[in-house]
Each structure stands twice: as structure tokens, then as C-alpha cells.
């Protein structure tokens, strides 16, 4: 099996700028620059507000009418933890049952290995055209670029992903990849790519995409999907979609490859039904998505259609070492996107500013998992730690706790810049000395005097100015709570 060439050695006429992304971060601009750019983009701001507000409202409404939701979320969280505690057992069982049903199972430790495995399957089957269902795992390993570089045509078939592919961009939301684009922009894009007039009407654009992609489904040699779940007890791969592209991809081409992170395995159909009850509710506010597709093995001898070959690729890519790592809990994630919609930071900057495959609060943890802690030295601070993400998470992942641990790690390992570390050190030192801390308030009042206007500090000099450039600070009160409390105690 030929290993995939490293990204930077590649060349060729069809190479685009973003092709160099195979292992590098998405952009050369720093996170603060990307975030600042996003906050200046007026359309993006509007789109983000509409999308996130609507998702949050739908989610809240559907859970309000579902009293058993909270108990199911507790059970789902337990199941995820229980699976990780016996992950070897469930992966062995899944492997045995997929093979029993006639499928093949592959093991990929790295992204490179996963690409090589899938490329090899495609080459052996002389694949020319590939249709893809929506898969964050495939995004994560930049699979399309690798396949295209090997001379194969790849068509994304989720409408949002298809739009993103035509525009040579990356998804900006886990479940609504193209929310940053207007219908007019999309119509222009289709007009240019398909060389015909296209009205800026979602209905018209969707009809056009249906026709174009239908041809591809019928011609494709191979389908690639992710997996929302894999049921160990039966060897079943579960795909959840609204458009039906997941069904097309697993019904029409002669080869089906499913790529999944190891953490997606669940024990049984009974567990599956628990997850199904909370997944779509959390993602889109639906009770169930339009299609939940349970795939067990390749086509049966009694069937007229369905793939003749089925391959499941189990991928590690930084996950396994987190079993005993600080990010273990992030392995519970169902990729519903609920934490993005409620995050005050995501709502301001959108998905692209995060600069990697997975945006939003969970995305920061996933980026740290995939690329190591130094990759999130800025992102780890892109959270107000308000806890809204943990509150809506269907499996109650404590994202703020892990963000704080990441920040601690960045400080301890001297990855954070020295002024930041010095500041934390000084604060820690002061907070550990109550007598000195009590002295700090009167001193701060003296120090802040030149900068306070109407009880707020709006601009600070030098290094500290970076804080006040985009926000203000409340001034230290004329009498702090501690001072008032001490006075009250004396009166009593």
C-alpha cells in the first residue's frame, strides 16, 4: 500500500491554495486576526445571529415538550463513559460482527494511514467517481484532497457541503456547513460552475443540485460516509441525515467505505434508541432527522442493490491517547452542534475563525486532541467559560472544565506568552495571601484613578491595552465587598 505523499511535496495543475492544508492549520492569520475579520463581516454577523437563534429556539422548544429528555441525557452520558471503560471489548465485538456480516474492517492510527487505506480501496476497485456523505471525520483527515490528488473525482452530496466544495471553502458549522453564504452568493456560484442562469431562490438551487447530484449518485463507483454510531452487538453502521444523501451513497455505488473515530462505537440497539431520542432534538430541534439509516454488511444475496463491498475504517488520530488524558470527556461528543449555537464567542465569530475542522467550544477541544495543546494557545481563551455549552450538551460534556485545564497546561508548559504567565503567577501569589490581598484594593484604586470614567476603565496603556481595545473593565469599587463586610462585622 503506497502511503499518501506529504502535502507540501505535492504539485500538479489541479492543486489549489487550500491543498496545502493536509497537515497545516487552515490559515496563516492568527486567531485574533481571523476573529476580528469575522466581527467586521456584516453578512456573517447577520447570518450567525439568525441561524444560532433559530437553532437554539427549536432545541429549547422540543426539549420543553420532552420531559424525559433530561433523564435520557444522563443515561446517554453514562453509556458513553461505560463504552470508553471497555472500549477494547466493544471495538473487538464491532469488528467481529462487521466481518460476520461480510464487511471488512481497517485500523488507522493516524490521519495519513486512514487516507492511505481509503486510497488503496479506491485504487483496487478502479474507482473514478466517489460520492460522499457528510462526514466530519473525512474533513478532519482532508480526505477529498488526497483522493483528488490520486486522480479521482469526489462529489460532496450534502447540499451544504456541495456548496462549500464548489466554493473551495471549509464548513463553518458542524451541521449547517454553508450558513455563512447568502442565497445570492450560492446562485452565482452555481451559475459559474454549471454555466447557466440560476435564480437566487433556495427552491430553484435545490432542484438544480438534485438533478446534478442524482447523475453522480447513479454513476459513482464508490460511496464514502462517516458514522454517527456503530452498534457493536450487530456490526451496524448508523447514519443520520435529513436530505437522503446518506441513503443514496449506501444504496447505489458498488463500494461503501465508512470512516469513524473509535469513540463512535455503542453496545446495542437499545443504546442506539436512547441516543436517537436526543441527537436530532439537540442538533436541529427535530424529534428524529428525516433518515436514520442502519447499514449491516454489504448487499445481501437476496437484494437487488446495495454495495458489493463494505469497508469500515476505525480511526484513532489522537483519540486513543485521550482515554487517560485531560480531554477524555470530549470523546463522548455526538457532533450535534448544540454547543456552537449557544456559545457567545461562536455567535460572534462563526466557524471559520476557529481555523480548523471542528469549530465552537467542542471544536477547541477537538483541535487540541488532533493537533496538540500548542495549537490552541489562543483558542483555549476563546470562551467566556459561561457554561452554556455544558448546559445544552446532550451528553453533558463539561467543556469549561477542560478549557480551564487546557489553559493551565499552556501556562505550566510555558506555551502561553510570558506576560500572560507572569500575570497569572502574580494573581495566584496575591490570592494566596489574604493580608496582602486586602491591601491590593486601596492600591488598585490609586493605580486606576487616571483611567476610570463613569465607573469603567475603557482604555489602558501598553500591553494591557490589548484587553481594553475590544472591551472595558469595571473599576475597583470605592468600597469592596470585603471592606463592607468587615465594617458590618465591626458594627455588629
Amino acid at each position, binding site marked *: 500500500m503506497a502511503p499518501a505523499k506529504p502535502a507540501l511535496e505535492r504539485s500538479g495543475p489541479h492543486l489549489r491554495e487550500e491543498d496545502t492544508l493536509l497537515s497545516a492549520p487552515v490559515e496563516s492569520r492568527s486567531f485574533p486576526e481571523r476573529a476580528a475579520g469575522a466581527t467586521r463581516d456584516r453578512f456573517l454577523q447577520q447570518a450567525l445571529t439568525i441561524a444560532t437563534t433559530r437553532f437554539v429556539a427549536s432545541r429549547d422548544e422540543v426539549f420543553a415538550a420532552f420531559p424525559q429528555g433530561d433523564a435520557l441525557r444522563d443515561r446517554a452520558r453514562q453509556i458513553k463513559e461505560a463504552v*470508553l471503560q471497555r472500549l477494547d471489548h466493544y471495538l473487538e465485538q464491532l469488528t467481529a460482527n462487521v466481518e460476520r456480516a461480510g464487511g471488512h474492517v481497517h485500523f488507522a492510527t493516524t490521519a495519513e494511514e486512514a487516507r492511505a487505506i481509503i486510497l488503496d480501496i479506491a485504487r483496487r476497485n478502479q474507482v473514478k467517481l466517489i460520492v460522499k456523505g457528510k462526514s466530519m471525520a473525512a474533513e478532519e483527515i482532508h480526505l477529498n484532497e488526497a483522493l483528488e490528488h490520486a486522480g479521482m473525482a469526489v462529489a460532496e452530496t450534502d447540499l451544504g457541503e456541495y456548496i462549500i466544495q464548489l466554493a473551495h471553502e471549509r464548513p463553518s458549522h458542524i451541521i449547517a456547513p454553508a450558513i455563512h453564504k447568502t442565497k445570492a452568493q450560492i446562485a452565482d456560484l452555481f451559475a459559474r460552475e454549471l454555466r447557466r442562469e440560476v435564480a437566487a431562490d*433556495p427552491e430553484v438551487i*435545490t432542484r438544480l443540485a438534485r438533478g446534478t*447530484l442524482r447523475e453522480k449518485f447513479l454513476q459513482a463507483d464508490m460511496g464514502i460516509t462517516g458514522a454517527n454510531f456503530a452498534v457493536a452487538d450487530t456490526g451496524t453502521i448508523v447514519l443520520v441525515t435529513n436530505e437522503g444523501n446518506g441513503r443514496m451513497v*449506501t444504496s447505489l455505488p458498488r463500494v461503501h467505505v465508512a470512516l469513524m473515530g473509535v469513540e463512535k462505537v455503542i453496545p446495542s*440497539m*437499545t443504546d442506539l*434508541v436512547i441516543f436517537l*431520542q436526543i441527537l436530532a432534538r439537540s442538533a436541529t430541534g427535530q424529534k428524529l432527522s428525516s433518515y436514520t439509516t442502519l447499514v449491516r454488511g454489504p448487499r445481501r444475496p437476496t437484494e437487488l442493490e446495495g454495495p458489493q463491498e463494505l469497508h469500515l475504517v476505525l480511526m484513532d488520530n489522537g483519540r486513543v491517547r485521550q482515554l487517560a488524558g485531560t480531554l477524555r470527556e470530549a470523546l463522548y461528543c455526538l457532533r450535534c452542534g448544540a454547543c456552537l449555537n449557544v456559545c457567545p464567542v461562536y455567535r460572534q465569530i462563526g466557524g471559520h475563525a476557529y481555523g480548523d475542522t471542528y469549530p465552537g467550544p467542542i471544536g477547541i477541544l477537538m483541535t487540541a486532541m488532533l493537533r496538540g495543546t500548542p495549537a490552541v494557545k489562543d483558542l483555549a481563551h476563546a470562551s467566556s467559560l459561561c457554561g452554556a455549552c455544558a448546559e445544552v450538551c446532550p451528553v453533558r460534556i463539561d467543556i469549561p472544565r477542560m478549557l480551564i485545564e487546557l489553559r493551565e497546561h499552556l501556562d505550566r508548559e510555558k506555551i502561553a506568552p510570558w506576560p500572560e504567565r507572569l500575570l497569572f503567577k502574580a494573581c495566584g501569589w496575591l490570592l494566596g495571601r489574604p493580608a496582602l490581598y486586602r491591601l491590593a484594593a486601596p492600591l488598585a484604586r490609586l493605580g486606576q484613578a487616571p483611567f476610570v470614567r463613569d465607573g469603567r476603565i475603557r482604555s489602558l496603556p501598553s500591553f494591557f491595552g490589548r484587553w481594553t481595545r475590544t472591551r472595558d473593565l469595571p473599576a475597583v469599587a470605592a468600597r469592596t465587598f470585603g471592606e463592607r463586610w468587615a465594617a458590618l462585622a465591626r458594627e455588629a
Partner: protein
Amino acid sequence: MTTRAEFMERVRREMARTRGLFPARVAERPADPMTAAELVRRQLAERWPQALERFRQEFERLSGVFHAVASPSEVPAVVGRIARERSARRLITWSASALGADLGEGFRGEGLDAVAMPDDPVDEAAARELRAINAAAEIGITGADLAIGETGTLVLVSGRGRPRSTSLLPEYHFAVFDRRALVETLEQAGVMLEAWHADPADPMSGGVINFITGPSRTADIELTLTRGVHGPREVHAIFVSR
């Protein structure tokens, strides 16, 4: 390349370094799925009218169209009326044995070009021809193995005479079912899934089981709800009461 043994070894090594975050258990499964499924069926033998009413409400909320007929022979007339309204003629259907009724004559009587899927595998040339017919069909007729009241969901198992694409490629999908398919909750559907998989030789245990909850839809362009992206834009449920 990483072998299965190496991969699992690494998983075990990392697992050994922690006891996990808290004591946790997986979902409790029915000890005997067949008996549990039988119990659900017995409960529903009495409660099916409530399950049907709930199904109708939920299904209509998803913009599904609900029809009730007295016997299978009345199905073609329902389909024929809708087809004429939509100017659709080309129809594909699960085989007579998969549907439990031979409706071919009935469909043709309604002026529809009806093609039934064969029960047995066909050679490559015939398969190509069938695929062309399926791709051009406007109407797809299937059965439904479950109809879930709580969510308005139709569950279809692929297999002999029941291709995966009959409910997918055409713009208009009609699913025909009777009271035996009705369950009230997803949890009960879970019991059925456990029962179907209890015996690996059971034809209900595979290739593909689809939970269909309303038409194909997307909101990928400015969050505008649009139906019929890749799959059907309309889903009709025909309940046969006899």
C-alpha cells in the same frame, strides 16, 4: 500499516492508565428480546387505535399525507388520484410478496406504468435496466415494517423484493401498512430492533433498515426549509384497516 492487534494493544495500554471518570453502565437490554417483542405486540393489540392516531398527528406535522383504506385493493385508487394531480405516471413497487398483495393490475387500471421489483436476483443486464427504471420513476410503493406513533416514523427493512431505493429515488413515496406495524414509542421500536437481530439468520436483521421521518429536507441555504433534496419531496402513509 497498523494491524488489528497493534491497534487494540494501544487501546488497552491507554485504558489501563485510567479507571475512567465515574462508575457507569450501558443501557439495560431485554433479557429475552423475542419475549419482550411479543409483549409489546400484545399490548398494541389493544392500544393500536391510539398508536395510529398519534402516528397520524405526528406524520402530518412532518407534512406527510395520511390515507386510510379498508383493504389493499383500494390502494391503487388513492395512488392514482395523487398521481393524476401531480402528472406522474411511472411507478415502481416492492414485489407482491414483499407487499403482501399484488397491486400491479390495480395500478395499471389507474393508468400508471407500474413495474414490480423481482423477488430474486437478476443478471447484470437486467439489473442495469431496473436501475434505469428506478431512476426514472416518479412514484415508489413500499410496505412499512414499523410505524412509530411518537415520531411519525416509517421503518423499512431492505431484502428480498424490497430494494433500498424504492422509497428513495422517486419524488413521491407511498408506504402501505396495517395495524401490525404500529408501535407507540421509539423505545418499543428498539425492542423490535433487538428482536430482529436476536437471530443473525433472520431476514429482518439486514442489509439496511431505514427510519423515515417525513420527506427529504434541507435548510442548508439561509436556513430556508426545502423538501425533496435527494429523496422524496412527498411521503404518503396508507393505512389498511382490514
